[in-house]
């Protein structure tokens, strides 16, 4: 494939309106690519051929008759298979739900549908958005399109692989400790974990009620802004949803970045060689590009990342065990081994320990916001991961979270928006992402900085060879 075969949502929206392509052509191409790469990448759990083609034909008729739903009209989009889709299998890649067909769409799915998006696939996920990659589940794990011997990260593994491989133009992921930003970084795409409460989680199978975030994964920041415009808004049926005005995300991209202040969080990845030299170099390169774009970059010290990691992991384990307890006790054999082992660990956390973690979370969040205020910074920059995607077989300890603290967990605790953008490539040909984070509900400003970085970085100049 060439770069021209990987059009963005923004460019495709213009082509649709110029009459140089049709939704039928776009959806057919998406379905064919999903099918053609399935044996290599395993990115899909369900390919939605019939429904997608009907929707595409309707989208073409609507556009011709003046019913234009906006830039997502007729665009092929994928959904992590934990998002409820009315009438379509939604499995969480678990035998527990392998025949589950929801009656209603998740709120975010309904919003994307209303904006004209066409769903071509339900995409691979680690079981219940945790515990992979695993080979004892109903569907095999997705693979990294840059090198299928390597993992695509998780748990939004299929979303990362499918967007990077040009199988869909955008996808939905979920992020409880980094499950959007991890795969985004390892697959060389853009992933946004929005502010907590910005996108409804109703109809998305939970892993941790207080840390789950839904968010888009795309090939550019501009496309991410387009999806955010459709996804954002108050949902009275998600208790965490916040009623706050929805900004014009696309307009925000064009705002001024000169004079913005960026705090670089080196303490989290640099000491004692935590991150490999190439990942460290990408963050330093990103800092230089942000400076060239007119921003000021200064060091900032935040709370110890190990504290965020411990706090977040205890909360996730406690809440996930509460969610799955009944199934784990009654039919443990219906879960994969990794998930069964990991989530049962939540049984060993007492009520007071869970509540202590929740209290510590508030302390860490306040300390982070205080540090940003004291350092007078608008956004944060840090590493997204310690290195490139691991090979299958090297990356599946039962309890990976007892190793280095995840670089993405902190912003699940604080609820700040966090954005991963590809910085470049390592010598092994695999992509490396960098992570930016904003203040709560300043998702629009964060996207502006991400867009400025992406513009300064220039085109990646390569696509996966699949």
């Amino acid at each position, binding site marked *: 494939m060439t770069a021209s075969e990987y059009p963005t949502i923004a460019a495709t929206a213009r082509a649709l309106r110029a009459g140089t392509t049709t939704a039928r052509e776009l959806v057919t191409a998406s379905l064919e690519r999903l099918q053609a790469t399935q044996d290599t990448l395993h990115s899909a759990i369900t390919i939605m051929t019939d429904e997608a083609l009907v929707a595409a034909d309707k989208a073409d008729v609507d556009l011709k008759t003046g019913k234009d739903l906006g830039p997502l009209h007729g665009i092929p989009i994928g959904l992590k298979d934990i998002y409820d889709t009315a009438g379509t299998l939604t499995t969480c890649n678990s035998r527990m739900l392998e025949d589950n067909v929801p009656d209603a769409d998740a709120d975010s799915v309904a919003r994307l549908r209303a904006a004209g998006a066409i769903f071509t696939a339900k995409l691979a996920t680690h079981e219940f958005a945790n515990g992979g990659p695993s080979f004892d589940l109903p569907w095999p794990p997705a693979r990294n399109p840059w090198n299928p011997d390597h993992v695509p990260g998780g748990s939004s593994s299929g979303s990362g692989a499918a967007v990077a491989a040009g199988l869909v133009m955008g996808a939905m992921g979920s992020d409880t400790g980094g499950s959007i930003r991890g795969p985004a970084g390892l697959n060389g795409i853009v992933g946004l974990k929005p502010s907590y409460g910005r996108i409804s989680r109703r109809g998305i199978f939970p892993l941790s009620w207080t840390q789950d975030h839904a968010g888009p994964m795309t090939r550019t920041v501009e496309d991410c802004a387009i999806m955010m415009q459709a996804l954002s808004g108050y949902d009275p049926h998600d*208790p965490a949803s916040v009623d706050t005005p929805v900004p014009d995300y696309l307009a925000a991209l064009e705002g001024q970045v000169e004079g913005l202040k960026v705090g670089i969080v080196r303490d989290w990845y640099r000491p004692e060689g935590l991150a490999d030299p190439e990942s460290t170099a990408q963050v330093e390169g990103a800092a230089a590009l942000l400076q060239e774009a007119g921003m000021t970059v200064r060091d900032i010290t935040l709370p110890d990342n190990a504290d965020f990691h*411990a706090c977040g992991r*205890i909360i996730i384990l406690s809440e996930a065990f509460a969610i799955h307890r009944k199934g784990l*006790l009654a039919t443990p054999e219906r879960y994969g081994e990794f998930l069964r082992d990991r989530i049962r660990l939540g049984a*060993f956390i007492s009520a007071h320990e869970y*509540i*202590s973690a*929740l209290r510590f979370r508030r302390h860490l969040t306040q300390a982070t916001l205080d540090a940003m205020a004291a350092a007078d910074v608008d956004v944060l920059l840090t590493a997204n991961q310690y290195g490139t995607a691991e090979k299958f077989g090297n990356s599946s300890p039962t309890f990976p979270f007892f190793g280095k603290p995840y670089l993405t967990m902190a912003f699940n605790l604080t609820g700040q928006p966090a954005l991963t953008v590809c910085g470049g490539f390592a010598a092994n040909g695999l992509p490396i992402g960098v992570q930016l984070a904003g203040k709560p509900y300043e998702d629009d400003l964060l996207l502006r900085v991400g867009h400025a970085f992406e513009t300064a970085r220039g085109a990646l100049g390569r696509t996966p060879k699949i």
Partner: protein
Amino acid sequence: MTDQEKFDTIAEAAGLALDDAERVRLMEGYNGLQKLLAQIPDMALAPDEPAIAYVMPTTRVQR
């Protein structure tokens, strides 16, 4: 009580049915979990507690 005995007591109280291999794996996890739990400080009560607020159904959170 040894760590293994504590582990077995909690597992039994929680109703976990573990075969020998699972017991070994989960004991490894239990040991790792103790290190994470040790990082959570014993925080004094503060004026802005509680950290966990009960929000009534139908409450609309606005900013």
